[in-house]
């Protein structure tokens, strides 16, 4: 089919929801109001780590206008392991804490009241008896033998197939590094990043006369949310009527199914519609973030710019619980070597638990941070060797037919062609030998072969 026959591809198509957005008529979850609607506020852990000895909700329950209090006992399946369906285990995060708290902000109990202000004022009256324990907050400390194990399986990392980290081994790094002309090291770190969508988390649930629940959610993943909510509520998923798809900014911050289960329980317990909307402070300090990470590179590089050996040790901060991080670190491990032909690769990627707010999905999580580190390291190599930035990448770029460290053969590679196109776009005239390179050409790859 020729390009001329396409009707939509290549056209600028206006957003279907654009007029609603610019006139303020688009309905977001916080715009949903039901008659007789109640408001929910969450009581959260004030400390990073501790043992719960008592939760006294009596003053809150007695507060005029409070209709219900939701505790761990009200949650049919009080486990919150959103990736359990792809084998992330064991269950480690309760929907509502009852034995211990693992991060500042961890949900403990919910107050449901006639107005938002009453719910907030009553929530402040809940008395928490929590024995404070020293938190684990530093990544290196967390994986050292001196650190207390904050996870019930006895250490502070996710266990991948029985190992404390994901291992990637390709070729023979330890021999190859001895043969390198230069050893170039670099450590690259990211702090956790908060998505900060302009719309905070919000969920409205209305119990229907036929026993179903109508769930308005600004989740990014409606089916995923339905499945996980059904597992927590222990109901068949057809009990849930999910309404969503309009999200005031997600960026990965609204995939953790963090509001729907509790709001559903509140609606079921009270028999009335319930709204739970997060304050900006909750969004900023208690919602999930991108993982903080520290990546250490040790490269063996030849005088001509070829990287012959690469070792990476990476610690990603999952925070207190799994969420999406075990999956993220898996992707991360695969991307740490970069899109380059390196015959000897050694990667150790750890998914580390600390007493911080859990990290989770955000914009290419696992991969984006690896890319940042890889390209900084490539630049460091270029400057150390006195080789041009474009050249160092084109020399090392992977070619078709080569075996990658993750045991996949490269096919349909376009890295070289894309770099060349970028140079042209910005008006940078690459020298002839770099212009001549292509993804099928091993000669320019300095003798690397797959």
């Amino acid at each position, binding site marked *: 089919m020729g390009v001329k026959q396409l009707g939509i591809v290549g056209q600028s198509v206006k957003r279907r929801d654009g007029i609603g957005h610019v006139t303020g008529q688009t309905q977001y979850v916080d715009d949903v109001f039901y008659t007789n609607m109640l408001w929910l506020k969450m009581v959260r852990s004030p400390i990073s780590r501790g043992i719960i000895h008592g939760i006294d909700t009596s003053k809150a329950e007695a507060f005029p206008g409070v209709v219900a209090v939701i505790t761990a006992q009200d949650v049919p399946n009080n486990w919150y392991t959103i990736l359990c369906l792809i084998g992330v285990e064991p269950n480690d995060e309760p929907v509502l804490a009852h034995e211990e708290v693992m991060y500042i902000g961890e949900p403990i109990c919910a107050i449901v009241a006639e107005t938002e202000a009453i719910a*907030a*004022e009553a929530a402040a009256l809940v008395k928490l008896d929590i024995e404070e324990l020293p938190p684990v907050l530093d990544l290196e400390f967390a994986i050292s033998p001196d650190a207390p194990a904050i996870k019930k399986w006895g250490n502070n990392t996710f266990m991948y197939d029985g190992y404390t980290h994901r291992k990637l081994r390709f070729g023979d790094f330890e021999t190859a590094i001895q043969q390198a002309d230069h050893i170039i090291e670099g450590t690259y770190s990211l702090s956790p990043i908060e998505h900060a969508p302009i719309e905070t988390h919000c969920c409205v649930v209305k119990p229907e006369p036929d026993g179903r629940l109508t769930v308005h959610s600004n989740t990014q993943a409606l089916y995923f949310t339905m499945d996980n909510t059904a597992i927590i509520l222990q109901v068949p998923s057809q009990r849930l009527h999910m309404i969503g798809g309009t999200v005031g900014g997600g960026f990965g911050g609204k995939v953790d199914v963090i509001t729907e289960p509790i709001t559903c329980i509140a609606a079921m317990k009270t028999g009335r519609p319930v709204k739970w909307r997060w*304050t900006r402070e909750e969004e900023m300090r208690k919602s999930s973030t991108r993982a903080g990470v520290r990546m250490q590179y040790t490269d063996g590089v030849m005088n001509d710019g070829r990287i012959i050996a690469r070792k990476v040790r990476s610690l990603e901060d999952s925070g207190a619980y799994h969420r999406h991080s075990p999956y993220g670190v898996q992707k991360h491990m695969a991307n740490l070597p970069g899109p380059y032909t390196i015959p000897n690769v050694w990667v150790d990627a750890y998914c580390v638990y600390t007493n911080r707010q859990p990290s989770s999905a955000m914009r290419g999580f696992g991969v984006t941070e690896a890319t940042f580190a890889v390209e900084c390291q490539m630049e460091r190599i270029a400057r150390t060797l006195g080789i041009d930035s474009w050249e160092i990448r084109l020399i090392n770029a992977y070619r078709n037919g080569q075996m990658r460290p993750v045991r996949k053969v490269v096919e349909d590679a376009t890295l070289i062609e894309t770099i060349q196109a970028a140079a042209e776009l910005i008006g940078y005239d690459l020298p002839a030998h770099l212009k001549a390179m292509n993804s099928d050409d091993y000669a320019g790859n300095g003798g690397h072969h797959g």
Partner: protein
Amino acid sequence: MNADLFIPRSLDEALGVVQSHGAGLLVMGGGTMMMAHLNEGVFFPKKVMSLARAGLSGVYRNGHTQIGATTNLTDVSQIADYPILAEAAYQIGGPAIRNMGTIGGNLYMPQPAGDLAVPLLVYDAHVELASPSASRTVSLEDFLAEPRSHRGVHELLVAIHLPSPSGHAVYLKQGRREANTPSVVAVGARVVMDGQGRVSNARIALGAAGPTAFRAKNAEAALVGQTLNTKSIAEAAQLATEESNPFTDALATAWYRRRMVGVFVKRALEQLAK
């Protein structure tokens, strides 16, 4: 939520409210700080007074200048004869916040907000306070040293008094963004030169470099009698750094703030030297 809201139409009426309800009373100027706390559920006051209609806005000139405590930041940003006060007000928030925030309220903001104290210290401001029984005027320095709160109020900030301006002044603010940011550091500097190009009077005020805004008096004293040159500027910047006692918060570390004091005092003095 049940609460008593008072919107007095005059200072006398406002003082009457303080007299009757002072103990549990929350006072709002423009409300930009207090409403934020109410919205977030930080506290739940039962008695609130807004000064928005109490007739405490306006700029009056009578030999010296008097700025009403509830004059909003937009109006303050247009007080052309006190240029660094106007500049500092313009660098707060965005247009909407400036339409609401007040100069008086700004003096109650905890660091690293409360930028206006910096130019006001440079301009030797005094603040006028009124209670049901008395009225007093104190230097801004003394006022900043007192504990002050919007809550459990027994007196109200009524006006800011400024002597006629003199000399050249510069204000520099470093934030985390180009606009709408609290300060990493804020520097206000003013010099008056004698006939021989030497400093006869200097003011260096710092914001977000201590528990309150303050004058770096050692740095000021070191400039008096000097010309503004590389050496005298470097010395003043160093002294200002030593006089600082900055804090760490989400915006910046104490270490970084201390470094920035030196950088921005130097820049401010270099601008004055031109």
